[in-house]
C-alpha cells in the first residue's frame, strides 16, 4: 500500500509532497505547498467523528515534542469531495546538532476501506449482542411459560446424538439439570414399567419412520411420587423424508388427571343413585300392584275386582317405564317401540286367556322419548288395548288388534285398531263419562299437547298424534 508523504518546514508549512499524498489529501502539489498546520481548511476528525484538536495534529505533536509518532488514526475531511478519508499517520522530525527541527516528515496510508470493514464488523457484533440479549430474554420468558404450564420441551439430533432439554423437562422428570439430559436408558427406567414398551416403540417408530406420537404415560420419580405425562413428538424430516431429528414436549397432566378422576367418580355416583332411584320406584310400584292384587282377592264383587285389576295394570305400565329408564344407557331416553312391545306382552299376560283367538299385531318404528312422554303414552295404550279386548271381542271370538307407532321426525302417531264388534253409531267418546276414556282425552290433549281421534269407518281405530317437545332433557 503506497504511503502519502509530506515534508513540513519547522513552521509546519508544507515544503514537499509526493503524488500519493496529493491524491489522498485531494489537493494538488501547488495547493499543498505552504499549507500550515493551523490552516482553517484542514479538518481532522477522531475515530468517533469528533473534531481533532489542533494540538493533536500529527505535525503539531512532533513540532511540540520533537519526537516521532506512530500509527495515529484520524479522519481528514475533503471539502472538494465532501467525504472523509481515514488515514494511519506516522511521522518523525529531522533535528539539527543543536536539537532544533530542520524538517518534519509525515507519512500516511489510506485505511478508509479497512475502517469501513471494521465498522461493519462492529455493527454486526453490536447487532449480534442485541440479538443474543433478546434471545436470552425470550428464553427466560419461555422457561417461565413452561414452568407455569408444566410443559417441557426437548430436541434430539440424530446425527450428533445430542439431546437438549428445557429447564421444565428436568423439573418434570426429576433429573438434575447440572448433569445434562439423561440418556435414553435412564429415561426409560424412569417410566412406569407398564408404559415402557409403549414409550420405546413410539420413539423407535418416530426415529426410524418419522411417525409422530401423542400419548399419555406415567413416570415414577425417585421419591416414589408418580406423575402422568402427555408425550408429543414431531419428527424433523428432510424433503426426501429422511428423519434428521426429533422434537417434542412432555406435559405434566397429573393434576388435571386427578381432577378428571374426581369428576368421573362423582358422575358415576350420581348415575348409580339415579339408577337406584328408578329401581326403587319400579319396586315400589310393584308393591302397590301386589297390594291391589291382594285386595282384589278379599272381595267377591266383580266390579271392584275389575277396577282393582285395571288399576294394577295401569301402575305396572308406569313401572315398566322406570324399568326401561333403569336399563337405558343415558338414564334419560327410552325407545317407545321397546316399551310398547313389553307393555303389550304384559297386557296380553294379564288380559288374554290361554285359549284366546285374538291375534296381536305390532308395527312399530323406533322412537326416542323421555319419561314425560312415555308414561302418558303408556297409560293411553294400556286403556285402548284393554278396551279393545274387553269390549271389542266376546269370549274366544277371532279377531285382530293392531298397534302401530310411526314417527316422521316431527310428529309421533300411535294407532290402536281392532276389528271387533265396533262402537255403536253416534257414540261420542269425548263426552262419554268413563274414567278410561276421560283419562285418554286428558292425557292426549292436556299432557301430551296432542290430539286423539276415533275412526269407525271400517274397524275401530283410535289415533293419537303428538309432538315430542324439543329440549325436553330431564336428567
Amino acid at each position, binding site marked *: 500500500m503506497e504511503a502519502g508523504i509530506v515534508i513540513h518546514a519547522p513552521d509546519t508549512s508544507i515544503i514537499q509532497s509526493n503524488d500519493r499524498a496529493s491524491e489522498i489529501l485531494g489537493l494538488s502539489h501547488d495547493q499543498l505547498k505552504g499549507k500550515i498546520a493551523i490552516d482553517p481548511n484542514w479538518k481532522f476528525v477522531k475515530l468517533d467523528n469528533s473534531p481533532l484538536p489542533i494540538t493533536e495534529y500529527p505535525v503539531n505533536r512532533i513540532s511540540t515534542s520533537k519526537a516521532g509518532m506512530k500509527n495515529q488514526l484520524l479522519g481528514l475531511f475533503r471539502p472538494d469531495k465532501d467525504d472523509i478519508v481515514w488515514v494511519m499517520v506516522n511521522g518523525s522530525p529531522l533535528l539539527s546538532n543543536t536539537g532544533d527541527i530542520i524538517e518534519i516528515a509525515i507519512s500516511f496510508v489510506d485505511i478508509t476501506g479497512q475502517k469501513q470493514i471494521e465498522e461493519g464488523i462492529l455493527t454486526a457484533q453490536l447487532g449480534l449482542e442485541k440479538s443474543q440479549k433478546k434471545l436470552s430474554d425470550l428464553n427466560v420468558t419461555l422457561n417461565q411459560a413452561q414452568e407455569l404450564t408444566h410443559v417441557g420441551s426437548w430436541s434430539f439430533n440424530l446425527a450428533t446424538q445430542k439431546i437438549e432439554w428445557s429447564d421444565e423437562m428436568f423439573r418434570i422428570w426429576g433429573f438434575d439439570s447440572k448433569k445434562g439430559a439423561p440418556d435414553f436408558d435412564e429415561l426409560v427406567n424412569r417410566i412406569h414399567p407398564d408404559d415402557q414398551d409403549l414409550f420405546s416403540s413410539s420413539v423407535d417408530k418416530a426415529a426410524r419412520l418419522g411417525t409422530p406420537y401423542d400419548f399419555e404415560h406415567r413416570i415414577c420419580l425417585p421419591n416414589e411420587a408418580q406423575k402422568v405425562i402427555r408425550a408429543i413428538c414431531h419428527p424433523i424430516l428432510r424433503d426426501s423424508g429422511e428423519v434428521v431429528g426429533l422434537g417434542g414436549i412432555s406435559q405434566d397432566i397429573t393434576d388435571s388427571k386427578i381432577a378428571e378422576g374426581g369428576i368421573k367418580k362423582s358422575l358415576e355416583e350420581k348415575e348409580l343413585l339415579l339408577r337406584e332411584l328408578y329401581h326403587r320406584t319400579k319396586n315400589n310400584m*310393584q308393591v302397590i300392584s*301386589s*297390594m291391589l292384587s*291382594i285386595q282384589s282377592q278379599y272381595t267377591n264383587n266383580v266390579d271392584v275386582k275389575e277396577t282393582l285389576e285395571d288399576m294394577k295394570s295401569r301402575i305396572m305400565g308406569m313401572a315398566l317405564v322406570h324399568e326401561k329408564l333403569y336399563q337405558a344407557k343415558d338414564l334419560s331416553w327410552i325407545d317407545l317401540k321397546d316399551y310398547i312391545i313389553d307393555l303389550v306382552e304384559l297386557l296380553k*299376560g*294379564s288380559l288374554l286367556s290361554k285359549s284366546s283367538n285374538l291375534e296381536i299385531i305390532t308395527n312399530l318404528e323406533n322412537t326416542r322419548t323421555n319419561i314425560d312422554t312415555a308414561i302418558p303414552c303408556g297409560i293411553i295404550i294400556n286403556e285402548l288395548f284393554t278396551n279393545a279386548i274387553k269390549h271389542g271381542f266376546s269370549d274366544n271370538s277371532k279377531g285382530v288388534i293392531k298397534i302401530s307407532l310411526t314417527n316422521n321426525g316431527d310428529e309421533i302417531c300411535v294407532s290402536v285398531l281392532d276389528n271387533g264388534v265396533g262402537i255403536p253409531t253416534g257414540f261420542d267418546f269425548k263426552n262419554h263419562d268413563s274414567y278410561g276414556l276421560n283419562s285418554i282425552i286428558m292425557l292426549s290433549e292436556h299432557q301430551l299437547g296432542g290430539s286423539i281421534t276415533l275412526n269407525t269407518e271400517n274397524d275401530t281405530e283410535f289415533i293419537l298424534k303428538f309432538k315430542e317437545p324439543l329440549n325436553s332433557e330431564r336428567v
Partner: protein
Amino acid sequence: MEDKKKILIVEDEAINAMYLGRLLKSSGYEITGAVATGESAIASVEENCPDIVLMDINLRNSIDGIEVTKILREKYKFPIIFLSGYDDQEILSRIGSILNTWKLNKPIVEKNLTDLLQEVLANHA
C-alpha cells in the same frame, strides 16, 4: 287325592311375598314359608323340604338369591325359579351355570308364573 306341592317363597318385600303366597295358595299349592333372607331360606328348606323354591335375587341384608341357591345345590336338587326385575348380563351368566333353575321377570304375570310352576313341577321336580 294327590298331595299338594310345597313351595318356599324367598322374597324380601313383604307385600310381594304376601301376594305370591295368596296367589299360589289359591292355585292349589302349599306354602311352606315366606322368608326374607338367605339364611332363613336355608333353615326353612332344612325344616320343610319344599318341592320348589321361588327365589328373589336381590335380598336386603343378606347374601343374594344366587348365592343361596349355590349353597342349597350342595345338598338339594329341587327346582328353583328366580324372580328378578332385569335381564342383567352378569345375573344371567351367574344363573346359567346352576342346574335345574329357571328365571321369571318381574313384574310377575300370574298366568306365566302358574304355567311355569305347573310345567317345572310336572317334569323337573
